[in-house]
């Protein structure tokens, strides 16, 4: 009996661990290797020739066009400053300064299929006298800067900073990205 049972245990463990670990590291586990900047997380080394095998597998699985590090860096936010998941029916405010850039864009996406629902870029924003930004993220038109969430339940924000050198130098771990706070729900 044991002569059959043990090999079966071996095969089940091997397959479970092998594919389970692979799936986890490409899905939820991706977060573990990300660099955190407040509510934002990203992989600033994604667009380099020194890309690690996990990031490479992730790129292949996602099927997205690669973005060179010299071109830009991307960050995701799926939770607000209080740690609650973002909801497209609520109203949020993004405030603060962007690190140096040639251009930045912000997209509101459906995390399930990466479809984009609202987007803005640095060229269409009004800034404060010190270059600070205040952007409303809401399902209804807001005064000042506004990005539409389309009333979608689950949303994620994707921030792309084009041509930024803020993340290639020493001390880049201490860079502040704009804060994201819940206003009303």
């Amino acid at each position, binding site marked *: 009996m*044991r002569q059959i049972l*043990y*090999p079966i*245990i*071996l*095969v*089940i*463990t*091997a*397959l*479970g*661990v*092998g*594919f389970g*670990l*692979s799936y986890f*590291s490409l899905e939820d586990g991706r977060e573990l290797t990300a660099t955190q900047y407040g509510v934002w997380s990203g992989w600033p080394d994604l*667009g*380099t*020739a020194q*890309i690690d*095998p*996990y990031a*490479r*597998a992730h*790129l*292949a*699985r*996602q*099927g*997205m*066009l*690669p*973005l*060179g*590090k*010299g*071109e*830009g860096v991307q960050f995701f936010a799926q939770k607000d400053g209080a740690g609650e998941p973002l909801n497209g029916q609520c109203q949020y405010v993004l405030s603060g300064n962007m690190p140096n850039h*040639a*251009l930045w*864009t912000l*997209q509101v996406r459906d995390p399930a*299929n*990466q*479809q*984009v629902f609202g*987007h*803005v*870029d640095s*060229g269409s924003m009004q800034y404060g006298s010190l270059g600070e930004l205040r952007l409303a993220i809401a399902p209804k038109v807001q005064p000042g800067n506004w990005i539409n969430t389309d009333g979608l339940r689950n949303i994620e924000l994707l921030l*792309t900073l*084009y*041509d930024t050198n803020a993340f290639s130098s020493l001390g880049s771990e201490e860079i502040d990205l704009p804060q994201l706070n819940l206003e009303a729900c």
Partner: protein
Amino acid sequence: MVRLALWVLAGLILGGIIHLSVILLLPSYAERDAWSRLASIAPDQAFVALDQDEQDLASALQLDPALAYGVCQFDLARGPIFIDGKLPHSFWSIAIAARDGRVIYSTTSRAGSGDEIKIGVFNPAQSRLLAEEGLEIGQGFLIVNAPSNQLTAIVRLWPEHEPLRPRYNEALEQISCTHDAAI
């Protein structure tokens, strides 16, 4: 009991090997990666502007809706590639990416070349020929050494206003991407 533990341990080790193989082999077997998707729309030796209105393509490639994209796919096995063109005076960037998504080279409009792109892409054997002056290339070309043959050049261009998009897409398709040594 010790026997069972040994079998489980062997299972764990085997699982680890499977995990590493999956992670390392996945990029070469992926059928819906960016390379394969572009292969069906990219013409031979020319840039094509990606249509942002095509929902499937835009979300699969995760295009930034604020930008206009031009792509050219090429194979260095047929000779070095020359990318030559002039872009509108706005923010642009170019990346040369290998089939597995590795970015080999990238630069932007702020790097000093103005509105002109002049890049020659060579594989190691062609670079050697170039160094021995066995190849003739035009003036002002930036030489990029690529470790692999199958590559994609991706140009991102920012239309400051939406009405500029058609003209910018046209400009992207005007960039040449050929095996002919530009002289």
